């Protein structure tokens, strides 16, 4: 029987298009369904969203032909400073500083605004043969048949393929329809995300401040701008999110002191309730989950998109290698290889960031002293520092070929 494509991808965020590109470059035919309409996807106004791409993710985007299109808009992260601060105190005296000069690979990562990354992915999809893009289409049903999988779209249209991939986020309807349950918990915190303009230059330095209410990340954007990820207890965060800009800024200002000079909002503000959510399985018959659909982690280390791109690289490699040896890629033994590759890594990071957050979102004096001591030790040991830098750059673990910047 003939299918509309080899693989159907549900969800056109960032992982979906990246996966479509990786698979199509490996000779597979892909159809991608995206609930968002195309005009919305192509919008070029800055909406306040930006991503911290680890070095390995930058390499993967390079291998997919995306990085060359967006490199001019990216801000390299040359330094990371992590410190244990309290509101009003600004940057604390004890801090950890990681400099890219300590590893030979170059900047640890880059900041890129959503609008540039999204449009580069859309352009590449349009130019790559073997990709059908269905924007503005919602999947209403999916069914595994003997020879493949079939989805029904809200428009009434039906599409069939050999397998289905859910890239549809942390509440993944694709996973629910496949009967995959999730495990997780609420942190009682909400992340406030926005971009700011500031008077003084940031020198490519990213800051992570561990405040009692939750971590605050200040990530450099091109020019005198920064992306802010600011976690607060949910009730307070909700109040701030709905408050006017002046009230919001008045609450934000004392949290990181005056080292960037005067600040102003740039673009929209977002609020994301923080939950750890892990799918109990990353695979089902003729189905795989990628990114937040498989694992929504705490954004404390900015690892959501980086983890998602690792899933993309691993799944594409497993499926393309299976195809090249003549295997039916949509079978349980093949999908099991993807799950084995990604689950351990994901669980370690999810639990690690969770533990980290619990340790740091705390004003207990004993814990504060322990933290400062721990930071001092890491600061003093070059080997340990280099390990942290490599970890932040995404260079540790069993790296898929794309994450090494190589074609599959």
């Amino acid at each position, binding site marked *: 029987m003939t299918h509309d494509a080899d693989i159907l991808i549900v969800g056109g965020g960032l992982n979906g298009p990246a996966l479509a590109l990786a698979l199509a470059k*490996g*000779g597979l035919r892909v159809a991608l369904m995206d609930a968002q309409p195309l005009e919305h996807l192509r919008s070029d106004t800055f909406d306040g969203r930006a991503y911290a791409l680890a070095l390995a993710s930058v390499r993967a985007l390079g291998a997919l032909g995306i990085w060359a299109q967006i490199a001019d808009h990216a801000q390299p992260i040359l330094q990371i400073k992590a410190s244990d601060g309290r509101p009003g105190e600004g940057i604390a005296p004890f801090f950890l500083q990681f400099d890219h000069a300590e590893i030979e690979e170059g900047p640890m990562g880059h900041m890129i605004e959503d609008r540039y990354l999204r449009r580069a992915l859309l352009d590449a999809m349009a130019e790559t043969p073997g990709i059908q893009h269905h924007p503005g289409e919602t999947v209403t049903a999916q069914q595994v048949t*003997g020879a493949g999988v079939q989805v029904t779209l809200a428009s009434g249209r039906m599409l069939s393929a050999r397998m289905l991939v859910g890239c549809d986020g942390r509440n993944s309807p694709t996973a629910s329809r496949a009967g995959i349950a999730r495990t997780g918990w609420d942190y009682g915190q909400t992340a406030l995300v926005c971009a700011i303009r500031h008077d003084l230059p940031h020198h490519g330095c990213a800051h992570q401040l561990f405040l009692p209410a939750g971590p605050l990340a200040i990530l450099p954007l091109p020019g005198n701008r920064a992306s802010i990820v600011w976690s607060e207890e949910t009730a307070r965060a909700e109040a701030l999110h709905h408050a006017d800009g002046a009230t919001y800024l008045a609450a934000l200002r004392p949290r990181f002191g005056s080292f960037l000079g005067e600040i102003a909002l740039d673009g929209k503000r977002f609020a994301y309730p923080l939950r750890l959510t892990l799918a109990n399985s990353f695979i089902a018959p003729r189905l795989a989950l990628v990114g937040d659909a498989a694992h929504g982690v705490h954004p404390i280390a900015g690892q959501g998109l980086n983890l998602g791109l690792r899933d993309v690289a691993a799944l594409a490699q497993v499926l393309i290698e*299976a195809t090249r*040896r*003549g*295997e039916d890629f949509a079978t349980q*033994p093949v999908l099991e290889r993807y799950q084995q590759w990604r689950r351990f890594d994901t669980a370690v990071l999810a639990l690690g960031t969770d533990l980290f957050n619990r340790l740091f979102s705390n004003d207990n004096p004993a814990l504060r002293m322990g933290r400062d001591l721990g930071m001092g030790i890491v600061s003093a040991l070059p080997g340990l520092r280099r390990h942290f830098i490599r970890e932040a750059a995404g260079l540790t673990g069993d790296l898929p070929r794309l994450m090494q910047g190589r074609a599959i």
Partner: protein
Amino acid sequence: MQTTIDPGEVAKFEAMAAEWWDPNGKFKPLHMLNPCRLDYITRQIAAEFDRDLSAPAPFKGLRILDIGCGGGLLSEPMARLGADVVGADAAERNIPVAQVHAQAQGLEIDYRHTTAEAMAAAGEAFDVVLNMEVVEHVADPLAYLTACQQLLKPGGLMICSTINRNSKSYVMAIIGAEHVMRWLPKGTHEWSKFITPDELYDLIRKAGLSPVDRKGFVFNPLRWDWLLSERDLSVNYVTASVKR
């Protein structure tokens, strides 16, 4: 039908035929070994016939014979890669099992209840003969390998895998696989029929082929999968030979 296969051996595999396609069933060890076997087979064929594995249908135009095809674990991948495949098995019951499965996959494969000797006598000719985990089950390995040689066109390639004969292979393949892990039914293998790599090279040369490569299939208990090894041919191993 003239055959070099022990009737007792054929009966053992017939009893297992219905289980072929369950990755967690009785043929689990073959399913686990399959990616590693396929990596070797596809790379050897691509190198010998100058094919690009990243291109669509890279084996188009190649005629491949899969001897002892069983349920089609190797025949189907070869057909997916574009080859014209004949799957031969001396166990009659395997043929309909393989046919039904290939049909469900939308693959065209010519499955036949026959032997290498009978096909050679009928003058059949192939670019590639896959002779995987068969030679340790035949009564007369030299007569069998000679039939394989006759089945190859000049310039053709034979891939032959089997199990080494030493104390380690006895422990791993018979005690380990059949008794401890129960991956294979007891009595699947007779250790005395195992062949060392040098003995196999010798037999292949006597049959009129030139051996060109050999590698080990090594089980890695940490990763729980099989890897190709340049040096470790102590239990499972594979060879490539050409007809000059």
